[in-house]
């Protein structure tokens, strides 16, 4: 018996299937992106806890947000676009001004002794403040810290803070973080403007 050659399979529909899979991959990858701002809530304190010592006024940067989405920063009405610069000046206190936070020397691995300011940012909002403004304020404050860290990392290591974190260079990133620790304290909200 003579062997007959097997006919070739028609591969025309293979492309359709490949496209189907491709579309599927596209759809699923967009579903996968969950971005967010990571924060840590303060733990609940036992009721018999002694009161913490009061913080000096010059070390606190007070940001208040009311129900009309207006900002009061250190007693002055401010637009959200100016908040970052104001926060940066407060955190770093480059001119060692009297009104801005005190500094104390701290030994930091890699960087050596540094003057670290005792800054605290206090954020208080109203129950009627919109979530959009709250996130915008959080974003501006985080951005102020990140920019200062970036500047320091550029001066010291010639790379941005972000790239240190991305490369997993924990020791250096930690040192930078120690100079500019993010201290945002959220007070209990007021209920002036109603829900």
């Amino acid at each position, binding site marked *: 018996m003579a062997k007959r050659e*097997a*006919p070739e*399979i*028609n591969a025309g529909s293979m492309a359709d*299937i490949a496209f*189907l*899979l491709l579309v*599927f991959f596209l759809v*699923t990858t967009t*579903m*996968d*992106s*969950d*971005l*967010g*701002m*990571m*924060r*840590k*809530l*303060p*733990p*609940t304190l036992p009721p018999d806890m002694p009161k913490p010592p009061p913080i000096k006024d010059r070390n606190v940067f007070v940001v208040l947000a009311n129900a009309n989405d207006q900002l009061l920063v250190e007693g002055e009405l401010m637009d959200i676009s100016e908040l970052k610069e104001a926060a940066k000046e407060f955190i770093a206190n480059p001119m060692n001004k009297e009104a801005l936070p005190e500094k104390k020397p701290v030994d930091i691995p890699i960087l050596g002794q540094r003057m670290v300011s005792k800054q605290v940012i206090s954020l208080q*909002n*109203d*129950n*009627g*403040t*919109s*979530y*959009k403004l*709250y*996130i*915008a304020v*959080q*974003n501006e404050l*985080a*951005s102020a810290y*990140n920019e200062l860290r970036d500047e320091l990392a550029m001066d010291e290591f010639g790379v941005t803070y972000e790239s240190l974190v991305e490369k997993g260079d924990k020791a250096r990133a930690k040192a930078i973080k120690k100079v500019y620790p993010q201290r945002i304290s959220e007070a*209990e*909200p007021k*209920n002036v403007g109603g*829900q």
Partner: protein
Amino acid sequence: MSKFKKDDGKADPAISTASLPDIVFMLLFFFMVTTVMREVDLKVKISTPEATEIQKLKNKSLVTYIYIGEPNDTKVYGTTSRIQLGDAYANVKEVGAYIETKRGEHDEAEVPLLVTSLKVDEDTKMGVVTEVKQELRKVSALKISYSTREGAKK
């Protein structure tokens, strides 16, 4: 002229369908995988605010979602912001219990790594968000993430 003409009257042999089951299985597996990834049916309208200083949530299996926004069906439920836990509307008081049940689904070693992602509509008032945060503090679910869209850097 005879270039396109068939040599003889013989019909084409049938295409082998042996690989068809493989393809179908491939699609089946795909569907199975994607249905696991699918999130809950949203009963509230959520358009998260924009931000630039954001991180990606890495381990999705460790994330619990809480949705807050205006109900889809405003004729029935009104326009006040509601909380959605899992597939249903919930009260603020139920947040703690929900977190506890989610914790029960994980190993004890994983519990400190659990993150709660707050998916909140940008027009929501802070009052309800703060209440939820206080509930989370009570059950010491302290790691939270405010879900946002990526905005353009200024």
